[in-house]
């Protein structure tokens, strides 16, 4: 049966293409996903896919046409009309796509949504065609005993598939210590949770069979299984995927349902094709003897019908699949979303393969085994749920290296009523629709005129994702940043520097604005509160800068600016090439005007650095090699630039700032990159400021006090001789003060910090020695002692602290909303 098998493979590939198209379109349609992933081109492969997609479409139509040749040739063949209609429609659409190349131009528009839905019509239509063309096998009602045994065994198999990979994942993770008994406890916990999940699936299947019993129609049973798959996929897509990218409401439900239906239709299509061998068998032996169990037909896409070999291979390879799926996406994952989706794939493969391998006992339709198993699963689950807190801590650590346990534990968190209400309040202050905000005018100086001080040149390097513990002035174990160390020796190194926001999207605006911003991804009328730009314009600075996807919405392009890295995308900005161009531009500058330079180089960003091979001969024990190697390269180029400034007599007339927009997770407790999580390694940043000698005179700098990157703008005002007004704790204040200024407020005050992407807020207190986080996305609160070690460690949070944090966050969010005239519509 080569033809059905080959056709099944073609249908799978065809569906994968259209599902990818739809996923891309829905991502583009979501303002959040568009601005965070698509626009800055975080995943370059996605760009290649978009460019090549019309050709893939044509290829998909060609392959599909080949599989339908018999129906296209013979007009009396079964399904001929449907096949012809499909090929005609698909060919027309492919030609249109080749002509218009819609994915390149959709941007963030409603057409993305329409095209996404349209793309999903193709696999659904093809499934209908195949169901007309290919005959259905004779079915019997589901063998419930077999389903029960398969569910229990599949839970064990899925649990083992992840457990085998735990030692390997643990080696890559940072800061997770699990004692031997912790592993045993972890595996027991995973089994209890997985068994609970699989038993819930079993109960849903059994419920379907009891309903279908009423009609005594096994085909209905099968179709209800398919409907169940469509529903489950819809729910997972909405509550897991859409929620993770802030895509909610009616459109998100429609998109999720369309994807769910397309997945189920393709599944059923492949099941129909893979069951053709059973039909041959049935025709040779008689229908009743070899009729297919309805659940076996549903399991056919993975395990087939006729042979157990494919199922055995699938089960054997499952640990490899589980590990590879998680490892291949972990560096680029978004709040563990892809790893969690991988768990569903592994579970589906385990369930279908094990079902195929489980021997069938004739007509076992008893319900009692399912009832008994569900009681046992329920009991086991609740034993684990009621483990003492010390055991729960171990399970939490184990979950960091076992995605299946993480999936269940994240899903099972339930907030109390008051917490749920508080979280709802936080969500109302998050990703605020820009039309509900009235932008205030923010000025640090009234009637801003030219400075009485001769303005120095300003060079602002914001190295995306640079962690403080990867720079030698903050960590003596770092040996790969000698040039930054040399610069630091001649600069102010701020020991307690933080970002206000755990992501670029709001961290960069906060630097330009010199303070916090209302939580929105579209910064309308930003020029009214762009205090840094106002300072530059008042002093006739020539702006030599990169225009990344964020800054192009914050800073206007005008005749007075010099754009660097012209033609490069945000993710392509490399500090070395930027500096080379800058040096060239500085040579030809208008010497009557000071220069302001800004760049957000991406060398260290996890999506960029991990693609770069570590040069032979370099090794970085104790550090993540590709990141450390990228920083070594940056260090060399920054050192070269400092030498350039010195040799051109510019160094002693320049403010040179090296900092980052935020840090990054590099395996801490299984986290990678930065998303919603607000953790020490993401919030702490390096901040090194070199001042010209003439500006150092008479200023005092508290290097041990808590500082933010949003303090830079008012600090530049102060350095240029202005007296910036104190706009309160939500705004920046000068790092450089008069000798007798009292900086003790920095040590006492509680400061609001936030995620850029979701309802996660925190408070920094005790001069940055404590950070308390309220995570309305993950449903967890956390407290960190930041004085422990280089970055800090998580500590137990008391109710008093938590209450105080909630009060402080709400109060400061209220102040922020008031500044922006925002009233949450709740």
């Amino acid at each position: 049966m080569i033809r059905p098998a080959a056709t099944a493979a073609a249908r799978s590939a065809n569906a994968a293409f259209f599902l990818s198209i739809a996923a891309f379109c829905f991502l583009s349609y979501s303002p959040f996903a568009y601005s965070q992933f698509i626009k800055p081109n975080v995943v370059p492969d996605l760009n290649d896919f978009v460019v090549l997609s019309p050709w893939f479409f044509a290829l998909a139509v060609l392959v599909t046409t080949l599989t339908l040749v018999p129906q296209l040739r013979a007009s009396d063949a079964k399904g001929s009309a449907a096949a012809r209609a499909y090929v005609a429609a698909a060919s027309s659409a492919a030609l249109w796509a080749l002509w218009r190349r819609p994915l390149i131009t959709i941007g963030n528009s409603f057409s993305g949504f329409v095209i996404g839905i349209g793309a999903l019509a193709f696999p659904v239509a093809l499934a209908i065609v195949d169901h007309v063309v290919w005959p259905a096998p004779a079915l019997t009602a589901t063998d419930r005993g077999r389903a029960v045994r398969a569910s229990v065994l599949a839970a064990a198999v899925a649990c083992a598939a992840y457990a085998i990979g735990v030692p390997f994942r643990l080696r890559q993770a940072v800061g997770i210590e699990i004692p031997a008994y912790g592993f045993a406890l972890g595996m027991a916990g995973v089994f209890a949770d997985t068994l609970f999940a699989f038993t819930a699936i079993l109960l849903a299947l059994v419920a379907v069979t009891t309903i279908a019993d009423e009609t005594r129609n096994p085909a209905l049973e099968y179709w209800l299984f398919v409907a169940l798959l469509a529903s489950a996929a819809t729910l997972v897509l909405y509550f897991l995927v859409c929620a993770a990218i802030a895509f909610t409401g009616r459109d998100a439900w429609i998109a999720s349902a369309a994807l769910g239906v397309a997945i189920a239709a393709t599944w059923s299509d492949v099941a129909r094709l893979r069951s053709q061998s059973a039909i041959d068998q049935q025709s040779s032996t008689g229908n009743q003897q070899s009729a297919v169990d309805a659940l076996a037909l549903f399991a056919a896409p993975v395990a087939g019908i006729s042979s157990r070999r494919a199922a055995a291979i699938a089960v054997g390879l499952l640990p490899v699949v589980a590990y590879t799926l998680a490892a291949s996406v972990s560096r680029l994952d978004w709040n563990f979303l892809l790893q969690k989706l991988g768990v569903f794939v592994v579970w589906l493969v385990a369930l279908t393969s094990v079902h195929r391998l489980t021997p069938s006992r004739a007509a076992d339709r008893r319900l009692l085994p399912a009832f008994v198993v569900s009681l046992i699963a329920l009991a086991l689950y609740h034993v684990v749920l009621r483990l003492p807190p010390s055991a729960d801590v171990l399970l939490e650590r184990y979950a960091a290296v076992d995605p299946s346990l993480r999936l269940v534990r994240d899903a099972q968190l339930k907030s109390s009523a008051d917490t749920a209400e508080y979280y709802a309040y936080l969500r109302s202050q998050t990703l605020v629709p820009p039309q509900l905000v009235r932008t205030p005018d923010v000025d640090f100086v009234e009637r801003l005129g030219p400075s009485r001080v001769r303005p120095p040149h300003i060079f602002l390097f914001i190295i995306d994702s640079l962690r403080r513990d990867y720079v030698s002035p903050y960590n003596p174990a770092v040996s790969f940043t000698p040039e930054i160390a040399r610069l630091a020796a001649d600069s102010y190194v701020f020991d307690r520097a933080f970002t206000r926001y755990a992501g670029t999207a709001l961290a960069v605006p906060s630097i330009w604005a010199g303070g916090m911003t209302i939580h929105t991804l579209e910064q309308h009328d930003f020029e009214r509160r762009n205090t840094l730009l106002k300072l530059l314009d008042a002093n006739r600075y020539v702006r030599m800068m990169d225009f990344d996807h964020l800054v192009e919405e914050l800073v206007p392009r005008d005749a007075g600016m010099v754009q660097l890295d012209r033609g490069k995308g945000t993710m392509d900005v490399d500090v070395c090439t930027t500096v080379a161009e800058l040096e060239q531009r500085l040579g030809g500058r208008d010497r009557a005007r000071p220069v302001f330079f800004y760049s957000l180089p991406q060398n260290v960003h996890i999506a960029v650095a991990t693609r770069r091979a570590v040069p032979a001969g370099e090794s970085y024990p104790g550090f993540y090699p590709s990141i450390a190697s990228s920083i070594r390269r940056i260090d060399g180029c920054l050192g070269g630039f400092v030498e350039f400034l010195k040799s051109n007599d510019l160094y002693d007339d320049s403010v040179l700032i090296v900092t980052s927009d935020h840090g990054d997770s590099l395996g801490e407790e299984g986290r990678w990159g930065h998303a919603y999580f607000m953790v020490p390694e993401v919030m702490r940043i390096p901040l090194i400021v070199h001042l010209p000698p003439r500006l150092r005179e008479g200023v005092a700098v508290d290097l041990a006090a808590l500082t933010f990157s949003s303090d830079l703008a008012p600090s530049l005002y102060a350095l240029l001789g202005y007296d910036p007004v104190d706009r309160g704790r939500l705004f920046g204040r000068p790092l450089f003060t008069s000798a007798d200024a009292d900086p003790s407020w920095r040590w006492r005050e509680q400061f609001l910090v936030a995620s850029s992407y979701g309802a996660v807020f925190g408070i920094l207190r005790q001069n940055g020695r404590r950070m308390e986080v309220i995570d309305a996305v993950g449903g967890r609160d956390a407290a960190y002692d930041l004085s422990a070690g280089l970055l800090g460690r998580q500590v137990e949070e008391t109710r008093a602290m938590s209450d105080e944090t909630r009060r402080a966050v709400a109060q400061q969010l209220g102040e922020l909303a008031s500044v922006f005239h925002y009233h949450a519509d709740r």
Partner: protein
Amino acid sequence: MSAHWIRIVWPLAMLAIFAATFRRPAADRAAAGDAVDCAQSTRAQGAGRLTFADLERCLALDPGDVETMAALGAAYEAAHRAGDAEVQYRRALGVEPHDARAHVALGRLLLAQRDAAGARREADAALRWHPGSGPAARLAAEARAR
């Protein structure tokens, strides 16, 4: 309800039980303490209005609160209990070794006790982490003049 309907309904009922008991409360916040409230009231009322007992109670609740240590040190100093004040300043510096204000406060206390060398050390430490600080510079000058 007939056995027929029980056959149909029980899996759904069991599924509902699974769904209803699936979730667990988010990690219970640990037992209440009033460390934060205490520290807050310390800041709100100012050290002058709090008794030694109040401040010591706050410190017992949050042994790492540098602000309360400094406040307690200042209160002891005002009460001419130099030894106790020194203990508190040094305790604060044990937690925040780079706190220039604590260095200056300790240096002033040492200078009052005629320990000029000790005061110079504290002034130098303060200036290392708070370059340009007026109080630290004045302390250094006075200590050198002794």
